[in-house]
């Protein structure tokens, strides 16, 4: 495909001949309104919003169906095309319910955005005359459908027919009684179902999990990496700190990454934010007794000192960051311990699929491999086991066990239990199943911060309390 020059609003751009005009407009951040086009789903040509004026063509053309040709002269702004945008937008809004005050999409809604950009007109219609459909239909899989808000862009239906190929959703009926639906009494049920929520440009598809929880303009979006499995899909973490409360995460959203997950994430990963906040360990324990941190560290040092010379094994969780794993290896060397990451507990063959879900549920198994940490439990008796959040900690026989863990699970049989920061409260490098290295920043700073692996090791080694 040869590169050609085209003119858009008076400026020259280089593009590959035969590619879609709308891709060029999006690439260069040139404002063009659209609902039905999506890079992952292709063009459908039904919303008619992306119209542009092309010199030499009598009528405006939709950019999603226009191929780049040498010398094309395109206008995305101007009296004529502005009025076209307003006209089509007016018709999109004509049957749209006045739901903004109760709609979760407010603040990230394309109709709102386009109205402010291209509309700002008065409604011609009284709400009694609008076409009525069903609202708040529970489709299953945490998705709620509001048929009235729908602009029939067919993104959600194309997702279930072309991407997941599960065909739960379709547009039924005809004319202005056309609506998105499942077959009667059937549910949306595939492992990627909740992606339709992000695909939907308006508030027709919303998340039951997020429903009425927070207004999006109060949220901060931080890029991160999901740690539900070894795929390492890119996500946005939406969080804030409500007044007089601790910082909290409201939801994960997919973040585009062409090398790993494209535009989508799986539902399990999407909802895994809950696990980061529920059932957290926030205090130290000595056996079944709650303890203050200083006493716990004292006890920790005593146990390590008295174990020097005998078999000390450090268990490293395969979800820890590369830098944290490196620190554990270094620490092991300094106290004469060995490191292992028994890997079997992380494998779930049922979970893995042909798309994003990997049967390796540990996010950093590749880093374990890279650092040469053994994935088998070494044979022989163990005097001291120090587990850094490894899932097998409670199943391995040792004379004494110290556990650093994020969650509240079994504590009373460990000699020392220390609370550990989750991956959103820490930062570092992940290596995914295909060997791609990705950096995950710190997202959450709790009111009472909990130490990370590196901070704990520095502290127990440091002498000072």
């Amino acid at each position, binding site marked *: 495909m040869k590169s050609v020059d085209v003119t858009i609003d008076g400026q020259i751009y280089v593009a590959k001949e035969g590619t879609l005009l709308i891709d060029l407009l999006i690439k260069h951040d040139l404002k063009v309104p659209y609902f039905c086009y999506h890079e992952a789903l292709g063009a459908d040509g039904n919303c008619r919003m992306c119209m542009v004026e092309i010199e030499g063509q009598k009528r405006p053309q939709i950019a999603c169906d226009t191929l780049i040709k040498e010398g094309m002269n395109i206008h995305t702004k101007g009296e004529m095309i502005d009025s076209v945008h307003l006209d089509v937008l007016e018709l999109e809004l004509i049957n749209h319910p006045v739901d903004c005050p109760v709609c979760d999409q407010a603040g990230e809604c394309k109709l709102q955005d386009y109205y402010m950009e291209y509309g700002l007109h008065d409604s011609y219609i009284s709400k009694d005359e609008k076409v009525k459909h069903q609202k708040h239909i529970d489709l299953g899989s945490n998705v709620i459908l509001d048929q009235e808000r729908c602009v029939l862009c067919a993104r959600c239906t194309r997702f279930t*027919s072309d991407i997941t190929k599960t*065909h739960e959703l*379709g547009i039924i009926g005809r004319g202005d009684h056309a609506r998105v639906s499942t*077959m*009667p009494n059937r549910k949306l049920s595939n492992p990627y179902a909740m992606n339709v929520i992000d695909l939907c440009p308006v508030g027709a598809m919303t998340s039951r999990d997020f429903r009425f929880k927070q207004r999006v303009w109060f949220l901060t979006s931080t890029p991160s990496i999901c740690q539900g499995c070894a795929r390492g899909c890119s996500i946005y973490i939406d969080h804030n700190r409500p007044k007089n409360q601790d910082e909290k995460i409201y939801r994960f959203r997919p973040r585009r990454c062409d090398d790993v997950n494209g535009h989508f994430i799986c539902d399990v990963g999407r909802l895994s934010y809950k696990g980061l906040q529920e059932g957290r360990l926030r205090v130290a324990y000595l056996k079944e007794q709650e303890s203050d941190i200083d006493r716990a560290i004292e006890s920790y040092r005593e146990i390590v000192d008295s174990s020097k010379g005998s078999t000390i094994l450090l268990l490293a969780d395969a979800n820890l960051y590369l830098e944290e794993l490196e620190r554990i290896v270094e620490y092991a060397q300094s106290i004469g311990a060995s490191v292992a990451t028994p890997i079997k507990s992380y494998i779930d063959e049922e979970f893995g699929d042909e798309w994003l879900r990997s049967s390796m549920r540990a996010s950093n198994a590749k880093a374990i491999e890279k650092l040469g940490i053994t994935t088998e439990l070494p044979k022989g008796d163990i005097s001291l086991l120090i587990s850094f959040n490894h899932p097998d900690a409670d199943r391995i026989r040792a004379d004494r066990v110290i556990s650093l863990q994020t969650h509240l699970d079994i504590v009373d049989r460990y000699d020392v239990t220390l609370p550990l920061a989750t991956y959103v409260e820490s930062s570092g490098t992940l290596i995914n199943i295909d060997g791609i290295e990705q950096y995950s920043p710190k997202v959450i700073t709790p009111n009472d911060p909990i130490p990370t692996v590196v901070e704990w090791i520095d502290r127990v080694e440091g002498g000072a309390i």
Partner: protein
Amino acid sequence: MSPDIVDKIEELKSKYPSPRALVLPSLWMIQYEDGYISLDAIDEISELIDTPPMEIYRVATFYTMFNLEPVGRYHIQICKTLSCSLRGKSEVLKRVAEMLDIGVGETTSDGKYTLSQVECLGSCGTAPVMQINDIYHENLTPEKAEEIVDSLEKESI
């Protein structure tokens, strides 16, 4: 689904480049057999013609002649478009509705008659026209329409 239909569908497969084309013919066969199109029937067709049930369901809801709910034994469809309207459709509709004591879109309590209005039947030269099941009744007057419905009553006894 009767084995006849299954056979017919298999036979038709050789006439089209893809079994997917058999959606409409299959739905028609189901409707003639059951009187309407049920979800179970759609699931059965789906297996036979290798097409997801939702794709068949969407088609069934698009076309006006497919009934997704049972209709009366005699489906009286009166054309309401311009030519029939200009030649007295309203009076014919009124008479039929009065006779059967139902409104448009309703079915008589004995399940015998459903009354609908439909768009242009392609019989404008002999307007006003109504279609009862598969047959057109043309050049109607209120009296003629009454006669026709009467004869249906007698037939069904």
